[in-house]
Structures are given as C-alpha cells and as structure tokens.
C-alpha cells in the first residue's frame, strides 16, 4: 500500500480516492464556537483500507460526514477521484456510508433495503433483485432477502447495511464505527470478514473507530486524530512502533514514557522516549545484559495477572514508571504475585526506545487516564496506566 509520507505528491489527482485539504469545521459562533475539525490534510489511495482512529470528540466522525456530504466544511476542500465535491449534496457524490446505527429502512424488506440505491438510479426490478441478491451473498447473508430488518440480529443488520452500500459499487465506502454496537466475539469475527470483503471488492474503505486494536488489525494505513487534527498517519506497524507524539503513543497501545530526567539517567540522552511494554524484558536486578541492550533498575509496584500474560508496573530508580508485559509461559498467578515489591531490572534493545518529536505537554500527555498531566504529580504515573483494551 502506498505510504503518503513516502510517496511524493506528484501523482495525478485522480490517483487518489479521497483528498482532503485544509479541512475545517466549526460548530457555533463567537465564544461558544467549537472547532471540531481544525485543519486536516489527508490523501487516501484507491483501494486502501484507511482508518481514522481517535477518542470521541477528536473530529474523526465529522471528517467522515464531510466526505459523505452531510456536513459542509467551514473551510478547505474535499476531492473524490480528482473532482472537487466540497459543495455537492450527498446524493451527488460517489460514496456510500455504513452508519453506526445501520439506518436500515424498517418498512422495507432486506432485499428492498439493499436494492434502494439501484432503484433510485432507475435500475429495473429484475436486475435489482439479482444484484441485491449477489450483494447479500457477498456479505454471507444469502436467502435473507424477504425478511424485515426487525427480524435480524445486530450482526446481520450490520451486514445488510454493508451490502446496501456495496451494491452501488461506490468509489469510496465510509464506515462510521460500524462494529461499535456488536458484542466482542461478533466484533472480532466481523473485523476479519470486513477486511476480506474489502479485499474481494477492491473498494476504498474509510473506517472510523475509537478502538485502536480494530484500527491496527484491519487497516492498510491509520490516521490518529486528536483535538480536530491528525497527529500521525502511517501503516499500523509504524504508528504503533514509532509514535510521533506522546498522544499517539498513549492512545495506540500502552504508553511507556521516559521523561527527560529519567531518559538522561537511563539512556544518557535528552528528550522524551517511548517504549512498548512487550519490548521490555524483566530480569533479576543487576543481571547481565545482552549485546545492544540498555536497562533500568526499579521496584515492582503493581502486578496485574491477566491470564495469558502479566503486567508489571515498575517504579524506576531514575524516577519514571514503566509497564512491562510478560507472557505467562510457566508462571502461575501465585508466582507472579510474589514479584510485588521486588527489585527487578528492565532490559530492552536500544532501538526499541525512540524519541518523540513532540514533547508531552499537560494537555496531550495521555488521552485516557484521568491522572494525566505530568505537571500535577511528582511522577508521570498517569501515562503508564493507559491500557490497551
């Protein structure tokens, strides 16, 4: 998949499925104005599975609604396949949306729901039935055409909504947290199916979610939203392994931050560094290091046993706290609990700690923990509590 950062923007405009330039959306006026989207530039390639990830209120859904045409941008342009559609109504755009609440028409059968877009376009009844039937097969729901939406389960409704959008073969499919209403098992199953359906049909998917795991597992590229802006865009591995900002480090996975003081003591370098918990090796205090490793000593402050693995919160002598995740290969719950209060050494390969380009500020240190804001507490413990779901 093309990487926006690596691809020079010399491609013709039509090469991109979606191009957003200087997009802004302000709700209200004067002192009460809310800048929901505050200058977003994004290029989404044809055939890409692109995720917009962020907490609620970060502007990701508003961006999606501006692509669909439900909201008019305050400033900036939306281009679809090279054409400027900023001022066009939703029904004039070659995009379709899968809504969070599915928005199936309750008075129509499943087949009529799926065939709605075709009927609007004037496709004849016989052909409509065939194509709607095919779309239902594509979402693994054949033979459900005669039912009413109220007779379907949540997961089935979600598939009908998907079929209803896909049958029109839009240039871009917009999905607004479509898996949010499903239970965990079904959600995991639908993640895999959505991805394989996208591969089959080859349509560009723009997927809005607040679930970092969902974004990482399904996407070709992820854009992380924060306070109406895009903090980072890149392939999942890059966003996870090389977060550019403290916010991205904290929102996409557990944030382990070494702040300047600790970094100077442990790494001998200035700046703020991020290390993913699973990269940390927990060994006995003072144990020897392998080549290329660096280490920090500390005391285990908390032990969280989670079945498959155990999370250790280690208070470093240098001042920060780090979370380490260990697989429970041999240990039992009793073994790991005994680690509490013990002195340990955390070791990691030097290249796994990398510097954030934007130093954390109180407002963007951590998106989830209420104790965020390194200025308010002696140790920046807030960041280490941010947990992956």
């Amino acid at each position, binding site marked *: 998949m093309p990487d926006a950062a690596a691809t020079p923007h010399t491609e013709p405009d039509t090469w991109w499925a979606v191009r957003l330039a200087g997009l802004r959306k302000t709700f209200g006026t004067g002192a009460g104005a809310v800048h929901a989207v505050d200058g977003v530039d994004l290029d989404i390639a044809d055939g890409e599975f692109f995720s917009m990830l962020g907490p609620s209120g970060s502007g990701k859904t508003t961006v999606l609604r501006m692509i669909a045409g439900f909201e008019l941008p305050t400033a900036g342009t939306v281009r679809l396949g090279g054409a400027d559609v900023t001022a066009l109504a939703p029904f004039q755009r070659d995009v379709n949306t899968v809504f969070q609440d599915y928005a199936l028409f309750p008075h129509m059968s499943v087949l009529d729901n799926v065939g709605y*877009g075709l009927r609007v376009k004037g496709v004849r009844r016989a052909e409509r039935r065939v194509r709607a039937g095919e779309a239902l097969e594509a979402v693994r729901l054949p033979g459900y055409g005669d039912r009413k939406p109220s007779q379907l389960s949540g997961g089935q409704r979600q598939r009908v909504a998907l079929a209803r*959008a896909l049958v029109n073969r839009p240039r871009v499919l917009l999905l607004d947290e479509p898996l949010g209403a499903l239970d965990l098992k079904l959600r995991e199953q639908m993640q895999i199916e959505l991805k394989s359906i996208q591969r089959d049909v080859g349509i560009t998917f723009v997927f809005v979610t607040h679930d970092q795991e969902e974004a990482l597992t399904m996407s070709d590229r992820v854009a992380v939203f924060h306070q109406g802006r895009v903090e980072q865009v890149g392939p999942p591995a890059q966003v996870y392994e090389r977060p550019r900002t403290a916010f991205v480090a904290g929102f996409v996975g557990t944030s382990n931050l070494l702040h300047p003081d600790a970094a100077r003591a442990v790494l001998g370098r200035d700046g703020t560094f991020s290390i993913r918990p699973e990269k940390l090796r927990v060994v006995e205090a003072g144990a020897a290091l392998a080549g290329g490793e660096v280490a920090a000593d500390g005391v285990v402050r908390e032990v969280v046993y989670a079945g498959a693995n155990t999370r250790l919160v280690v208070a470093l002598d240098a001042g920060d706290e780090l979370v380490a995740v260990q697989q429970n290969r041999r240990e039992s719950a009793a073994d790991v609990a005994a680690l509490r209060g013990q002195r340990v050494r955390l070791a990691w390969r030097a290249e796994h700690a990398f510097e954030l380009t934007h130093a954390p500020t109180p407002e963007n240190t951590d998106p989830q923990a209420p104790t965020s804001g390194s200025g308010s507490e002696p140790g920046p413990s807030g960041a280490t509590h941010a947990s992956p779901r």
Partner: protein
Amino acid sequence: MDPGVDPDQGLTRRRRPRAVVRVSGFLHRHPLVRLLGLLSAPMLWLVVAYLGSLALMFAAALWSVDSFTGNLIRVPTLDNLRTLITQDVYRTVALRSLAVAASVTVVDAMIALPMAFYLAKVASPGTQRLLVAAVLTPLWASYLVKAYAWRTMLANDGVLSWALRPFGTSGPDFGVVTTGITLGYLWLPFMILPIFAGLQRLPDSLLEASADLGASAGWTFRSVVLPLVFPSIVAGSIFTFSLSLGDYIAVKIVGGSTQLFANIIYDSIAGGTNPPFAAAAALFPVLAVLLYLALIRRTGALENL
C-alpha cells in the same frame, strides 16, 4: 417485642396502621379484586355514561313524535330512517358534510406535514419549543373567539376582501369554502402534533442514508418519510375527520346559508320538535366514523399508532 428497643435502629419507615396493612395484604392475595377496584370507576363511566347513552340513542331513533301533541311515542318504527334515506335534501347535506370533512383532513395534512417536518427535523431546540407552544396556544383559546375571528377575516367586507380588492377580486364570503377554512384552522393542531411526534421518532440517519444512496429530497420524502409517518397522519386524520363531521357551530358563524349534517341533528333537538329524528340522523356520523376507522384498520395503520 421489647417496646424500649428499636430493633432496626430506625432504618425502616414508620409503621403503617394495622387496617391499611390488612387491606393491602388482602388485595395482594386477590388479584381479581384488585383489578375490579382499579377499573370499576372508569368501567362505570364507559359503560353507563358512554355506551349506555349511545344505546339509548339507537333506541330513540326508532321512536316518533305525535305531530299534534308533540309527545314522544315509544313504539318502534322505521319512519325516521326512511325519511332520512329517501329525501334528497338529507343525502345532499350528508355528502356535503363528508366532502367538507375529507377536504379539511387533506388540507390539514398538507399544511401539517411540512410544518411538523420543520419542527422535528430542522428547527433548533429553542425555535422548536417556541413553535410547539405557538401550535398549542390556539387550543387554549375559546372556540367561538376563533370562529368569529375567521368571520371578520373572510366576510364580504372583511380583511381578506379588503386586501384583495386592489387585485380586482374578493374573498370567498360566507359559505362552504369559508366553513372548510375555519374548520381546517380549528383542527390543525390535532394534525400537526401526531405527525410531529411521529417524525421525532424517525431517526435522522434514515434520511441521511436515503440521501447517501442517491435519493433526492423528494424521493426520500416519498419512499422513506411518508410511509414511516403514515400512521401518524392517520392518527391526526381521525381527529380532523370526526371533529369536522360533528361540527355545527362554525358553519353557523361563517357558513352563511350552508347546512352541514350536524345542523340537522342540532335543529331537530334545539327546536325541541323531534328528538327521535335527531337520534336517527345522529346515526349517520357515527356510522361514517366507524366506517372510516374500519377502512384505516385495513391499512394496518392502527397497529402502529
């Protein structure tokens, strides 16, 4: 129990009188008695005051009046009904009444739909509150005041004619059209409110989904909004239709020489001349409304109310 010690340290509420406890316990053990106690008052009202009077009316329709003494003759006869069916004047007035009721319903629905849509889907919360109050306020004003207001506006020398005079035309004057306008105004809130409620239950995402799938506003209205608020329109139409059919005051104020069917009923009673004939005539609006409800029921709209 030792009276000096509070065993639960004041945690329970004050003890209730023994008799209350005993009655409550009895009712708890006898659900049928409980149900009877709950429903006896409304049932009494429904059966005696409402169905009873209706039955009495049916019976009275078969009586007659001695044309010489004016006394009631309580002997069943079909004379009243025969007169109503065979005389042309009654058929004409009945058809006119049906036409007025149907027109009022259609016009009200056509005015109420866009208004309710604006209220439910477009207006800001503040504007919405203000407009809902504006729709409701006329319901608190006296019927006569409203009818006379329309009389002032639509009379031959009224406001509308005055405004239209420079264009070389005039208002409708008193008559069946003016009656229709007045009734349409009087019952409009009864049409707006159910449609407003129905549209509020309609998720915005359905409208967005329709637009997203390529439908224009008109198409969305026809194939999504209209079918989904149809039950609400029907609910409103029950009010506008039956209220129009039973009205005899507005037509007296703004109808000129026009007669509606309710006038026949009223005149037969108010003149004191022939109550049995009034009862027989009253069967017509009752049957018309029942027929209307039966028709609606066939559409399945009543289940969605």
